[in-house]
């Protein structure tokens, strides 16, 4: 089963490398990982999507916690959450198919951000399953290139305030 883990780490040189080294050293597989700043300057958030049985997930959480730079580990799969991914997809079109491709983009509430003679680039945001869906629909037109951000996720509602108290002094 896929799990989405949210990890707060000290925003320090090498913090990402420690996480990556732990995963490769222990033989755990990462499906996606995304890193960015948080509302607090010296803290970064990593959102990691991994799959594994319960015992493996327990080890992953413990091993992440064991890293000195780790401030908080939450398996968001256990909570109410918002999950989003962003994709930039460059897809081929021909004079006859431009309208179709634009329609697909609209249906998925994407935005066309670039266009040239034979291809256009669209930006789509949504839960990872939605990105998978649009990729499937666009496949027959010929996807030239694609970049996916990996999942970012955050807890919903009241849980957030409580969680934050635990690490902000």
């Amino acid at each position, binding site marked *: 089963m896929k799990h989405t883990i949210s990890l707060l*780490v*000290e925003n320090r*040189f*090498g913090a990402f*490398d*420690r996480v990556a*080294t*732990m995963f490769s*050293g222990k033989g755990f597989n990462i499906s996606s990982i995304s890193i960015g700043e948080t509302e607090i300057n010296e803290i970064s958030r990593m959102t990691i999507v991994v799959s594994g049985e319960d*015992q493996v997930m*327990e*080890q992953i959480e*413990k*091993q992440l*916690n*064991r*890293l*000195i*730079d*780790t*401030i908080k580990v939450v398996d968001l799969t256990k909570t109410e959450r918002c999950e989003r991914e962003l994709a930039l997809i460059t897809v081929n079109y021909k004079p006859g198919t431009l309208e179709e491709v634009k329609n697909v983009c609209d249906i998925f509430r994407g935005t066309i951000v670039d266009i040239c003679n034979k291809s256009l680039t669209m930006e789509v945001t949504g839960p990872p399953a939605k990105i998978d869906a649009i990729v499937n629909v666009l496949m027959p037109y010929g996807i030239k290139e694609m970049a996916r951000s990996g999942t970012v996720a955050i807890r919903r509602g009241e849980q957030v305030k409580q969680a934050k108290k635990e*690490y902000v*002094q």
Partner: protein
Amino acid sequence: MSPAKKKLSGADIFFECLKRENVEYIFGYPGGATLKIYEKLFEIDFLTHILAKHEQGATHMAEGYARATGKVGVVLATSGPGATNTVTGIANAYMDSSPLVVFTGQVPANLIGNDAFQEADIVGITRPITKHNFLVREVCELAVTIRKAFYLAQTGRPGPVVVDLPKNMIASECEFEYPEKVDIRGYKPTVDGHPNQIKKAADIISKAKRPLLYVGGGVIMSNAAEELRAFASRNNLPVTMTLQGLGSIPTNGKQSLGMLGMHGMYWANQAVNNCDVLVALGARFDDRVTGKLDTFATNAYKIHVDIDPSSIDKNVVVDLPIVGSVKNIIADLDKAMKDKPDTDAWWKQIEVWKAECPLNYANGSETLRAGYVIERISEKTNGHAVIVPDVGQHQMWIAQLYNVVHPRSHISSGGLGTMGFSVPAAIGAAFAIKDRPIVSISGDGGFQMNIQELSTAVAHKLPVKFIVINNAFLGMVRQWQELFHAEKYSFTDLSALNPNFVKVAEAFGLPSFSVDKAENVDKVLDEAFAINDKPVFIEFKVSREDMVFPMVPAGASISDMMIERLNPKRMV
């Protein structure tokens, strides 16, 4: 306005910090990137720098010192090759959870990443084998980083910490202030066990019919031997020890079943697989202990006490975890015990197993047997020595036959299994322990891996007994070749390669002995152990194709032991 504080150089700050951490010894080797520190060291008198002959030796020495004392072992190596030479020693300390702080020189910060002379990314290299590591870019961060390094190394589950020091940082200046407190928000080890969990555990142990304590290195490193001994004897509980747990209680003591696992005692392994409550104390269910996992203590209610939450449920899923310091938790458990369990019938069963399959290394055969030598050393020292095995057959014979009486007195490379560990680790221990004999025992293979450090022992007149059990084979590998690899003795016969060990040791300046007959063992041991103003060397030429038994073949159940050679023709 108060006057500005005096500025100190990075090198000054370095030593001010070590002074505040009460460092007595640094094990090191100078080089280009650490010249500034060595320049300052020349004037320092509150600590002693021990010049090793190789940085690996320095690192093992620091670990030997750390494990004999419980203090942090400190290493100082230069950049590049100096730093990479410490890697095996760091990995060894990581696997055995020994507290080390390893300082490495680094090229000037502006050259990092430039493939500069003697540059190596030691922070990157050591990331998976350290508890944590640091690259100190600004001299203002030096003091707080060193403070954190020592704190991390010795608290929680101990481990090695690397601090990388760029040359220019060491030369630059700032005001010095040593932080009194360390606050790392991502690092708050749990020390006290959860009271309800402890109460529940005490309840279950009280009611057990066949309880067993399975104790590991955590008991030694948290200084819990005293608590363990009291707890075990008050409740008449059998105790089996891992390799790292030896010394928790005397191996030959009343409560002891000796070591368990691959080369453990037959009765200890039977007890594990037949107990109804297994209490793991500071042990981590290593594969050398558990054998085949799905047959390991299947009927037992498992209680696991460990300071590292990630050790729990890692290899074996347990019924009752208690996270915290083993020392505190054993004491609390002892207090929480309402009734003693009735273990008389259980002890009788253990006695039956003991009689079924006693340890037997075929004493009295014509050739000198390694087991006999170990037994004589155990006898001669009354088990009071600090014994430092290397890795291989002799290490297992020591674990089986040497009666380790005190904690911190059996210093063995367990997790990593590093050949070449014994000689330097014994030297490190000898700097700390002056009132008991220090005995380094190696095989003829491992002895040659850090043989250069003999001169360090000579230089400091350390009365270490360096012993080589010489069978002119890489004996443990040979044993596996005989048992599991179609008797293809591929590259394990050293008879044509070994030097004359006595001559080598003499060249280093050690009084040296060689023994090849059982009747001479006692005489030579007496003679060698009487020399206490310098190191001595003794070689025992032993039966060449001896094997360590009993043995659990890799991947088999631990109660399914090979007791002796299958092919009697090959008996030595």
